């Protein structure tokens, strides 16, 4: 029977390896989007979708600012980069600053609708029956330094309403001046040329990032053009830098923790077979974890690799429990040795898998992958210990066992006396109280990611040189249809103008500023009929314009958004779907003031993507603590069934103390408590329960053997999580530090669980 099961397991693992091999041969699609690891706002799906659309559009943008003392060279280099972008097939080049041709095309489209298109100033003048000032403005422009009008234009638009409307439009990127079609800005002795591209492929796919990098070949361009500077901005660049770091770190951590584990095992057993048995267990765990994750999710996130590979280090615990039995009794068969630890590792696997599976309850897609990877890997490791190790085991009793067990026994004696236990628990609780009273919560998502410092500097420089790139907070406007959304934006305009006056923001871009609502356009036509048309004859004679004004047709329908877009109005970034618009906010200095101004306005939401992620992180930090309690509750029935009520409490005491003490000590050391610390504690609990179970399962004479096995397990876990604590990514660092500290505490306290074993 056992043989059959072992063979069956071999077949399963061969199939998993084959599947994994095929997937690897086809090239794995690594995901690098850190935001994909973060929770989604599940309460308002429509809002989330709209925000996602805005964020996605933004993430597809690639901004390159090329600088050189010689403007000609800068422009040349920018042209080269623009054609490289286009030729790569990855991106299209966008025009942020429309050229004269585009402006003329827009003018032609808008002309028939001119009587409905009034600038705010003209509209305000007409509403206070001051048509004279509108006429005066037109006359001043005809007589002024630049004759911006000709007879044809004046006959069609005698009050120059359309030029007034156009010149009142917001001017994003006003610092940029087109030089032969290339937007440029002069800063001190450097001329900068701007290239903006939109990626047509996934900016978070590592292969796309690599292709983009190769296509642009910035290093090559800079090498061949001395003195050329290139500033970059774009999610693809940030994600690429982050992914490189994560992959570098995970390969370093992987190699270092594997080497450390090998050394530790060799030192402990002074034999080869426990080493290769442990490596077999780890390998099986990783293959099963990878294959299952790929099967379930179709792709892998780099963070899964980073967290998952170190979690798999826990799998080696079960093989260590088994292998350490060789120190115990003389010449018992492998099957008999397995029988002694079978219950312990079965309970351990179950509680740990319960701990990992509670991660599935957190609404973090990335954590789902980590949970799946780890649970699958752990179950596979357990099955391998149970089914394969006794058959493969050729160990002989080591000679140095007595010394090792002696050390272990000394370690055990620490918690021997009830008095010491009491004092230990009291001191632990005191430290916990002290630390927890000083704990500081940290939910700022911007601090959780490690953004590449040179890229952050580039971003600041680009902002300084050409202004905001529309990547900050924005207003989301949602209405039944486009017309209603445009009307809503018009009703917001006074509020925004007030905020602009107060200096809370520099300007705003709303679709309604380019295409007023149909009802506003009709209202404007009525105003023009009532206030300006009666003045027309006098106005024309003042201008000395010969001939008649063009006939007026106020019956044509209003200008529509669709028509404006077709003619090339720069509205793309502001229209999400019919009725869902974005109002871009430029030069925000006081986000809270803006947020306040729009709270409680129906259909309008102030969206601060980074701020909202931070708020959600805070919410889910609390939820993670809930998960912690939940996984403790889920483990309890099994422990109570095995050890009785008091026994279950005794088993739960050490891991619980570790869970409370670890963040307390981190706080005393000046660390913050974030969602990622909370998630680490969920795992500390399940691993700590493992250790406690191993001690609860052992007999007095076997206790030193168990102590040795748990010490080795804790040692290997510390090697992997301690290394995570060295990560540059703040989130990974927090996770690793809390894990390492928690596991150390769980190990030190675990022998307390021994006393009440049956």
């Amino acid at each position, binding site marked *: 029977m056992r043989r059959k099961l072992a063979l069956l397991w071999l077949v399963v693992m061969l199939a998993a390896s084959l599947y994994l091999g095929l997937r690897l041969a086809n090239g794995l699609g690594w995901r690098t989007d850190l935001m994909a690891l973060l929770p989604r706002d599940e309460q308002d799906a429509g809002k989330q979708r709209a925000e996602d659309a805005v964020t996605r559009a933004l993430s597809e943008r690639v901004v390159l600012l090329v600088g050189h003392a010689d403007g000609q060279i800068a422009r040349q280099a920018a042209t080269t980069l623009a054609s490289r972008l286009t030729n790569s097939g990855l991106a299209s080049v966008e025009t942020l*600053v429309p*050229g*004269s*041709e585009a*402006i*003329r095309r827009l003018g032609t489209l808008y002309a028939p609708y001119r009587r409905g298109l009034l600038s705010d100033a003209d509209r305000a003048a007409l509403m206070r029956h001051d048509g004279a000032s509108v006429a*005066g*403005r037109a*006359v*001043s*422009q*005809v*007589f*002024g*330094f*630049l*004759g*911006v009008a*000709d*007879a*044809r234009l*004046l*006959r069609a638009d005698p009050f120059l309403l359309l030029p007034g409307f156009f*010149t009142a439009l917001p*001017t994003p*990127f*006003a*610092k*940029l*001046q*087109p030089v032969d079609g290339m*937007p440029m800005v002069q800063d001190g002795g450097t001329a900068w040329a701007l290239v903006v591209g939109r990626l047509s492929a996934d900016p978070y796919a590592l292969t796309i990032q690599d292709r983009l990098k190769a296509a642009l070949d910035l290093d090559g361009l800079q090498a061949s053009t001395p003195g050329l500077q290139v500033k970059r901005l774009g999610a693809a660049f940030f994600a690429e830098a982050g992914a490189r770091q994560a992959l570098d770190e995970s390969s370093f951590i992987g190699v270092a923790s594997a080497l450390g584990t090998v050394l530790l095992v060799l030192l402990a057993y002074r034999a080869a077979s426990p080493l290769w048995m442990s490596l077999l267990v780890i390998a099986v765990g990783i293959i099963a974890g990878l294959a299952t994750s790929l099967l379930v999710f179709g792709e892998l996130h780099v963070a899964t690799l980073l967290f998952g590979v170190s979690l798999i280090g826990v799998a080696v615990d079960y093989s260590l429990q088994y292998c350490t039995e060789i120190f115990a009794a003389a010449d018992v068969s492998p099957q008999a040795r397995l029988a002694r630890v079978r219950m312990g590792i079965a309970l351990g696997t179950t509680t740990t898998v319960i701990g990992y599976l509670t991660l599935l309850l957190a609404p973090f897609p990335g954590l789902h992958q980590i949970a799946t990877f780890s649970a699958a890997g752990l179950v596979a490791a357990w099955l391998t210990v149970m089914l394969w190790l006794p058959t493969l085991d050729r160990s002989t009793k080591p000679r140095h066992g007595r010394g090792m067990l002696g050390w272990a026994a000394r370690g055990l004696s620490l918690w021997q006396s009830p008095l010491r236990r009491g004092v230990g628990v009291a001191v632990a609780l005191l430290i916990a109280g002290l630390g927890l009273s000083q704990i500081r919560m940290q939910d700022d998502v911007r601090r959780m990611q490690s953004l590449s410092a040179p890229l952050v500097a580039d971003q600041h420089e680009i902002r300084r040189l050409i202004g905001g790139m529309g990547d900050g907070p924005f207003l989301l406007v949602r209405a039944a249809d486009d017309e209603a959304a445009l009307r809503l934006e018009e009703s917001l305009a006074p509020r925004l103008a007030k905020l602009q006056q107060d200096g809370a923001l520099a300007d705003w871009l709303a679709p309604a500023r380019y295409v007023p609502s149909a009802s506003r356009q009709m209202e404007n036509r009525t105003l023009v009929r009532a206030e300006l048309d009666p003045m027309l004859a006098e106005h024309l004679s003042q*201008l*000395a*314009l*010969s*001939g008649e004004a063009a006939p007026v047709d106020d019956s044509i329908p209003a200008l529509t958004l669709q028509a404006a877009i077709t003619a090339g109005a720069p509205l793309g970034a502001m229209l999400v779907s019919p009725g869902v618009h974005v109002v871009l906010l430029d030069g925000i200095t006081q986000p809270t003031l803006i947020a306040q101004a729009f709270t409680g306005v129906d259909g309008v939401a102030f969206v601060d993507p980074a701020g909202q992620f931070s708020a959600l992180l805070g919410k889910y930090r609390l939820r993670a603590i809930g998960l912690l309690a939940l996984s403790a509750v889920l483990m309890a029935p099994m422990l109570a069934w095995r050890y009785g009520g008091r026994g279950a409490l005794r088993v739960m005491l050490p891991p619980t103390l570790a869970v409370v003490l670890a963040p307390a000590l981190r706080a005393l050391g000046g660390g913050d408590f974030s969602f990622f610390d909370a998630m680490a504690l969920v795992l500390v609990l399940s691993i700590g329960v493992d250790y406690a179970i191993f001690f609860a399962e052992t007999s007095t004479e076997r206790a030193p053997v168990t102590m040795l096995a748990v010490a080795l397990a804790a040692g290997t876990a510390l090697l992997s999580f301690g290394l995570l604590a060295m990560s540059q990514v703040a989130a990974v660092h927090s996770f690793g530090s809390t894990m390492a500290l928690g596991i150390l505490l769980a190990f030190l306290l675990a022998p307390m669980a021994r006393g009440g074993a049956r």
Partner: protein
Amino acid sequence: MKRRALLAFLPFLPKVALACGRLDPGQILRGRFVQTRTLQGFTRPLISEGHFVLSPGRGLIWRAEKPFAVTTLISSAGIVQLVQGNETLRLPSSRMPMLGQLYDMLGGAMAGDWHALERDFTVARSGEAQAWQVTLTPRHADNAAMPFTAINASGGCLVEAVELLKPGGDADRLRFVDQTLTSGPLDADEAAALAVLTR
């Protein structure tokens, strides 16, 4: 030492018209203008007059007094028009691609700096130093952004007349009188007016 003493006296030297020809940076040209704008489809030319201040590299202040008081400020940053202190027009150069170059052209023509114009125009000179004519013809006839078909200028010590010919037969004819050239700074009002452009 002697040199230093001389330098110390420099600010007290009377402001006199400096050498004829090209304006140097730091020099300021002030004067009155009469603008005759001929527009197709108008029964008579639009004539306006007023005074101007040109500071090469800084900008041009163009104050029409008759028939309407309109102040126009123009530099490479863009153009602002004011009627009774109210802005009636503000166009950054980014909005009108030719605007920055337009300033270079007009400022260059008024300052007699033909060199700056040679990129966009072929320059033909005739006459003598005290009575010269210059004709500028666009190099690229097909450039849609080029607002002029030709620019004619004439003058003696300073530029006295500029004729801007536009497509379709429209033309601006400018005459400059009572011109003074100084090397002093802009006065406070003038500096404040030009600062409006970059606000």
